[in-house]
């Protein structure tokens, strides 16, 4: 399974749990969970799917949660890359 698919599966698993919770808790619940536990790299991959691939494969609740998920800072450029550039 490619890593992108893994991100989708993990996000959808979280959404599945919150689908069963009271509707008002849904999007906030998913977003809080992802903000709390997902490293920026993972959130970047998620936003890549949301922004550049029309959120394909993602549960509707994940898409609803997306505006509430913290956008990570852009990936850090390693010192080595700046030197060689």
């Amino acid at each position, binding site marked *: *399974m490619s*890593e992108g698919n*893994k991100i989708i*599966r*993990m996000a959808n*698993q*979280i959404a*599945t*749990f919150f*689908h*069963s*919770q*009271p509707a008002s808790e849904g999007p906030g619940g998913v977003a809080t*969970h992802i*903000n*709390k*536990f*997902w*490293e*920026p*790299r*993972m959130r970047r991959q998620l936003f890549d799917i949301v922004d550049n691939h029309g959120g394909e494969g993602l549960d509707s609740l994940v898409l609803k949660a997306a505006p509430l998920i913290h956008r*990570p800072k852009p*990936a*850090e*450029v*390693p*010192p*080595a890359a700046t030197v060689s550039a």
Partner: protein
Amino acid sequence: MSLVPEIDFGTPAARSEKMVTLTIDGNEITVPEGTSIMRASMEAGIKVPKLCATDMVDAFGSCRLCLVEIEGRNGTPASCTTPVAPGLVVHTQTSRLKSIRKGVMELYISDHPLDCLTCAANGDCELQDMAGAVGLRDVRYGYEGDNHVKARSNGETNARWMPKDESNPYFTYDPSKCIVCSRCVRACEEVQGTFALTIEGRGFDSRVSPGMHEHFLESECVSCGACVQACPTATLTEKSVIEIGQPEHSVVTTCAYCGVGCSFKAEMRGEELVRMVPWKDGQANRGHSCVKGRFAYGYSTHRDRILNPMIREKITDPWREVTWEEAYAHTAAEFRRIQYQYGRDSIGGITSSRCTNEETYLVQKLIRAGFGNNNVDTCARVCHSPTGYGLGQTFGTSAGTQNFDSVEHTDVVIVIGANPTDGHPVFASRLKKRLRQGAKLIVIDPRRIDLVSSPHVQASYHLPLRPGTNVAVVTALAHVIVTEGLYDEKFIRERCDWSEFEDWAAFVAEPRHSPEETEALTGVPAEMLRAAARLFATGGNGSIYYGLGVTEHSQGSTTVMAIANLAMATGNIGREGVGVNPLRGQNNVQGSCDMGSFPHELPGYRHISDDSTREIFEKLWGVTLNDEPGLRIPNMLDAAVEGTFKGIYIQGEDILQSDPDTKHVSAGLAAMECVVVQDLFLNETANYAHVFLPGSTFLEKDGTFTNAERRINRVRRVMTPKNGYADWEVTQNLAQAMGLGWNYSHPAEIMDEIAATTPSFALVSYDYLDKVGSVQWPCNEKHPLGSPIMHTDGFVRGRGKFIRTEYVATDEKTGPRFPLLLTTGRILSQYNVGAQTRRTDNVLWHEEDRLEMHPHDAENRGIRDGDWVRLASRAGETTLRALVTDRVSPGVVYTTFHHPMTQANVITTDFSDWATNCPEYKVTAVQISPSNGPSDWQVEYDELSRQSRRIKGKLEAAE
């Protein structure tokens, strides 16, 4: 230094609140009602001679040595079986008593060998002591008559004589020295609960016998050693004592195997460990232990231990031994190079649940302060992370609610997804004791575990659910409790949010959650489930104990919440005898979680995004901390495969063997440029390592472990580290090489730092632990003596939160290709990945991992007991031998994962818990077919291991 003194009071303590005053040898003494005269005397400092009594078991009154005289009563009653009464006047030493005692001793000695000088118990023999105490000076009878002492008597074979039984690897049984006091039999029954020993024959002919005249090794005996400890003579003796001699000093420390956290006296001669004896004052184990803690310490001196640091450029190179300085400098340079090349977040580390709190704390500190990121995780990820999440959400704190003593007050116990007799043996013994007193038991497990039916213990209900349906079963239990009105409304209104309860109650009450509706799914008969629910809700104090069979599922966190819901709905939280109790696997899983091993939280479970918490550590450490959560172990491996994660420092874990989907783990490790493994042995993960730092054992360092009941126990150094350094020193030296100015001279200073930064540890210090023995966190101003039971006057989060728990089938489904469900577990004699226990004589009980399958499934496939079978899932395949048994239901197969050759995790998949990524070990769809030998992967892997264990200038390291 001297031996840690322990007083034997002769009979167990009485529980009564009512006090009784009497006079013994002119001393007035007040004791609880029900106390024996023997114990009361001992409390007054008067030692009444005794042989068959010891305070770990109930009195039996057979030796007649402890007789006393009581004014106004006839005869000479036995003080061990006679309870105190108000106003009694007791004499323990009179001329009549003296002569009776001498006579008794004379008879004992006349049938006892007189080889005291060369006897292993010389200096530690109660028979010797008593002969001295009663003033025995001569014995009128010889060995000419009937005796058990001589192999030949009057030139003929003596039929009464029996040879030694040396079958058990750790202790011997020498019947010629037995005085038939039955202390061993009672210890096996009352303390261990195995009932392996009996007294065979009658009168002079009687002898102790394991089972039906079997050898110890073949009998039911589980080698806990309680009988050896109870034996007053050399009849049952540790082989180590026979070999080495009597210890001269002892030190109290804590077992490094399972989460029970038993306290032991390490009994020493110089720096040589003579034996481990469970410590009576140990508050987790109360003087008992299992075979691992008591006997399986031989790994610490095993020749496979690596004692010098090693490095290599490529994992295909042989290892090269280097100095510590070179190893630190190389590692530091590599980590800095990788960060320079790939960015700050490209390295991380893993803390160990087998190391001390102090060591774990240092590793996470190194990562957060030295690496400058939060890429720290721990193997608790793969076992109990859902406990943290689930209990955090519902109760507000990620830990079990009770102490182990609580089980003495429980009336109905649910054991779900745990196998205590194998995984948590001392807890199991304590539970069985309570069950024999009449408490009821409900077992929820796919497999018929030993507790379901064992001597004098019978579960009221065993719900044999299909693996992966925990949520459905626990929710169905709640359905019955809610729809039949069995919930505890008063408790819920007082302690929980009533509207949340109503929402939850409406949810579980939906007909689709009824046992009748879910039966087809779970395989649990509806009537049985209803009866179990009623029993739990109405049977008095209800407690729930659970293990990895709950957490290691894609819905692990949801099941933990469902369990918490059940406890709150029935009012079973916040007092003795109730509660929600995770049984932790490794010795310091609780501690490693407490110490900030998770990538999203600092010590004390405080989220990394919380500014005020970060500030505490930033001030103290003099750095700026990253406020974003780091990578979890599976995420690290994913990132490694993607190419953004390149270096890792792994202390005391073997992720290649313990983590699921071995191929994914090895691909991740292989993609890294600097893998540093710190361990006792070249473990499986070390096959992919570039730097190896030798580790030290728990006998070689100071520190603390925190057990499953949140109890902080001291670990004390009894010998010099063979590798030269305790693990905390290695981490400190590495940190210094990376430019951090650490300067701890003793782990006590690390604990002081923990206490200063973490409110739940505020009052913990080594001095304090020396004073009180051990303490359960939170231990602070509000709870200076610690907290044996949590949530006593309210939940940590305020009000208990009911959360809906919808069952979601795992994606791991059986189908035509993989029609069976594999679930995994552990057994008593082995521990986790087995690196330690496999290097002890414990292998005698478990030489290999076996695949348990139901006769029906076996027959369908033409498999007989003992055949080699191929076990395949969509992730991979392996081979092992079958064990055909009806302990598992049709459609379910079961194995352990203690041996690297089995590679059971080649089979498990990368599916995981939705909330925590805890892997779904407990459900894998598999197929099984006959096979005639190891799979290609096993052969290849074996070759790889051999290659990667080569050390330059040395013969191939053995495994």
